[in-house]
């Protein structure tokens, strides 16, 4: 019982006794892999374009992220260092670090190899983590820190690891208490400016929604409606029992509109039926916009994902509605425009995959932080 979780050596590789042994083992594995490839008249490129450090406090999360990294390796070969904080079984016991490494071959890119290292911190070993990460980083390559779960903003290990990173990746969809975490992330992001970039995978999930909403207003005839919005409705997915209420993504969407269009809070977020939120903001010209964020059960959606958007506007007596619906199977978005209640335009587009690996891949391609996200977050915090 006091052993904590068992490490699957078949998945994570054999245990090595310390950094030097670990490096030696990696070298041996690389040579074995090239020899194997040479027999099949191939060469293996040791490729790494970044250091990816993952922090997880559950083996399940560690394993899942390792899988994502492996799927990503062909596009973003990395040295991946997975930190597993295995505190549970060893409360109070002396901390100890355990290291494993292996060279998974990326699926459908057998000529590229990358390196994966597991550091398991048993017991109270969090504060030692940075000291083992530093020597393992491949020099001269950017460091991405992917924090699964809610980051312990005030924690010492968190501070140290963030200090090593060029970029921090979080997923606000995982935040148990978004009303506390989102402002906290906004603070981190403000402090991060110029030191490291911050990415929220949940924001990346919003990209296709933002793109379509934006594209409506590329049409010169529809553009003026953007100044005369009267109401916005955003739906987000919940499970059948309505227990997992995760409105972060929907709220970020509202924050984005508010920041881009200069909407100001006039009423605080107020809970409405069944986990929804109902509130009002003021347009740049002072008129009132009714905002409604509500949970909906829909098959095939992950909890918290936006399920639909409806923007209502009125100008010179004409009613306009800009609607995006999401169809779970096959995955599509249908965008339509209604003027005076009459459908004027409709188009259906595939919705890009929201697999974690796709999201991370998208983020790794970009180095800087995203000021639009920061502004959306700031606007959201003001609304709250």
């Amino acid at each position, binding site marked *: 019982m006091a052993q904590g979780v068992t490490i699957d050596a078949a998945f994570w590789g054999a245990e090595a006794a310390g950094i030097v042994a670990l490096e030696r083992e990696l070298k041996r594995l690389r040579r074995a892999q090239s020899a194997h490839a040479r027999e099949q008249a191939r060469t293996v*490129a040791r490729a790494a374009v970044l250091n990816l450090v993952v922090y997880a406090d559950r083996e399940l999360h560690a394993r899942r992220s390792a899988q994502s990294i492996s799927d990503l390796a062909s*596009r973003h070969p990395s040295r991946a260092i997975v930190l597993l904080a295995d505190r549970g079984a060893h409360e109070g016991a002396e901390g100890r670090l355990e290291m494993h490494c292996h060279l998974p071959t990326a699926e459908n890119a057998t000529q*590229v190899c990358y390196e994966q290292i597991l550091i398991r911190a048993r017991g109270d070993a969090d504060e030692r983590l940075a000291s083992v990460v530093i020597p393992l980083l491949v020099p001269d390559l950017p460091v991405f820190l992917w924090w699964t779960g809610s980051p312990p903003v005030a924690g010492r290990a968190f501070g140290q690891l963030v200090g090593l990173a060029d970029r921090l990746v979080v997923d606000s969809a995982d935040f148990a208490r978004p009303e506390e975490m989102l402002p906290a992330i906004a603070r981190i992001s403000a402090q991060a400016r110029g030191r490291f970039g911050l990415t929220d995978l949940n924001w990346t999930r919003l990209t296709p929604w933002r793109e379509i909403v*934006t594209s409506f207003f590329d049409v*010169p005839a529809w*553009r003026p409606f953007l100044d005369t919005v009267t109401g916005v409705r955003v739906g987000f997915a919940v499970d059948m029992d309505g227990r997992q209420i995760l409105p972060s993504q929907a709220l970020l969407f509202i924050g984005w509109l508010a920041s881009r269009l200069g909407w100001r809070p006039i009423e605080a977020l107020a809970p409405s039926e069944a986990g929804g939120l109902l509130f009002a903001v003021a347009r740049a010209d002072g008129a009132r916009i009714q905002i409604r964020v509500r949970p909906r059960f829909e098959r095939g959606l992950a909890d918290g994902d936006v399920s639909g958007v409806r923007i209502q506007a009125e100008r010179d007596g004409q009613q306009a509605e800009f609607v995006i619906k999401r169809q779970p199977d*096959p995955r599509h978005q249908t965008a339509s425009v209604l003027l005076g209640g009459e459908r004027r335009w409709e188009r259906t587009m*595939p919705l890009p995959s929201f697999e974690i690996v796709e999201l991370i891949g998208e983020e790794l391609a*970009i180095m800087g932080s995203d000021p639009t996200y920061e502004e959306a977050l700031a606007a959201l915090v003001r609304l709250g």
Partner: protein
Amino acid sequence: MATTVVNPLREGLRLARTPEPSTIVIFGGSGDLTSRKLMPALYNLALQRLLPATFSIVGAARQPLTDKRYRDELHTAVGEHSRTKPLNEEVWRSFAEHLYFVGTPDERGYDTLGQRLDRLDQDLGTNANRLFYLATPPAAYEPIVKAIGAHGLRGSTGWSRVVIEKPFGRDRESARVLTETIHTVFREDEVFRIDHYLGKETVQNILVMRFANGIFEPLWNRQYVDHVQITVAETIGVEERAGYYEQAGAMRDIVQNHLLQLLALVAMEPPAAFDDKSVRDEKVKVLHALRPVDADRLSDHAIRGQYGRGFVEGVAVPAYREEQGVAKDSRTETYVALKCFVDNWRWEGIPFYMRTGKRLPKRSTEIAIQFRVAPHQVFSREASEGLDPNALVLRIQPDEGVSLKFGAKVPVQGIRIRTVNMDFDYGASFMVDAPDAYETLILDALRGDATLFTRRDEVDQQWAFVDPIIDAWATAPAAPPIYEAGTWGPADADALVTADGRAWRKA
């Protein structure tokens, strides 16, 4: 440009440069190019969500078709030719709703087309932004352009642009006349001449390789480069295109456009910016500096050939003159090898060997920069037996990538040197499927970015270079030498290079 409204939501979106709402009109909408390339490209742009917010496609040709029939035919064609399979039926349905056909057999047809376009503008709330794509046989280019002008098909507001397929003229004079005709309706900055090679990712990568990196450019000149080889090798024969090819030959089909484009990209000076003016200004300078081939000593610089029977990839293939639609005594060249010089400060005296042909042993497009050997041999002759000169090879297709050939010590006691390849494989490094050239080019034309299209002065210089060679061959008493299909061209082509003490690369 008329009213450009700012969309405050665009800021910070990664797809910051989405085309404006518009309509594309494809003349030759029922043709082969449309069904094999253009429509699959447009559909794939829709799949990638890269089309404008409101967008419609109008096909035009002389034979009438109903919208329904047109949609059905393209449904099949796109299903077959799309690079992504299977067809996403949901997306296709929505795409096809905005797909129309108008017959333009006569003047009335063009008026109907005009009315259809006006109505679409109204329905779509667009600004009469129109892209006219000429995908017809070249003989139809001029009448269609004139009709666009005469029937006022350019919208009253918004932008209008015209895309013209290759070939652009069949010599310098006809290209000039065509440009002049087009200019009666479109300004030069509204004219987008296609060279689909420029739309290829790996061709654009030549510029990135050269100008985004600091390590290559210092070596990229006569001081370090011994010579350059450019190869565009096809395994296919003339296929169904005999009618066109008999009139064109390899010189017009590949050299005038694709090969000279590759040459320009390799030889050009760094542009001040990656924009249409800077890039094309520099490319034109290379074409200006290209030394004209001396017609009296033609065979020292230009070799032609025509394929005979042989075996390609294990299959017996007929001779060119036995192909359907080809004259029994055809003198059309299916192979060209050239030795060129770029007379400028950077390249003085450095030969550029270029070759292209049909029915060669292997499909391969590549550019090889062969460097000079080390100035002084430190190692013994025996030790460096296995050493070739350094070469940087840019592979355009297939196996897109870059490799650098250099010498390394064989791990034994004592020194023995072997040539090794340092390989960068485009496909393995970025596992995403590269977009098709036509996707890139159509999207650029919709955005109004002409960087990857050929400007009038470029076309003019290209023809200025190839015309005298074509003329000399046309009047030469002898027919082109025959090379066996499945070989690397006629023996004379080897002589072109070996005379300088060099050899063609084993591509």
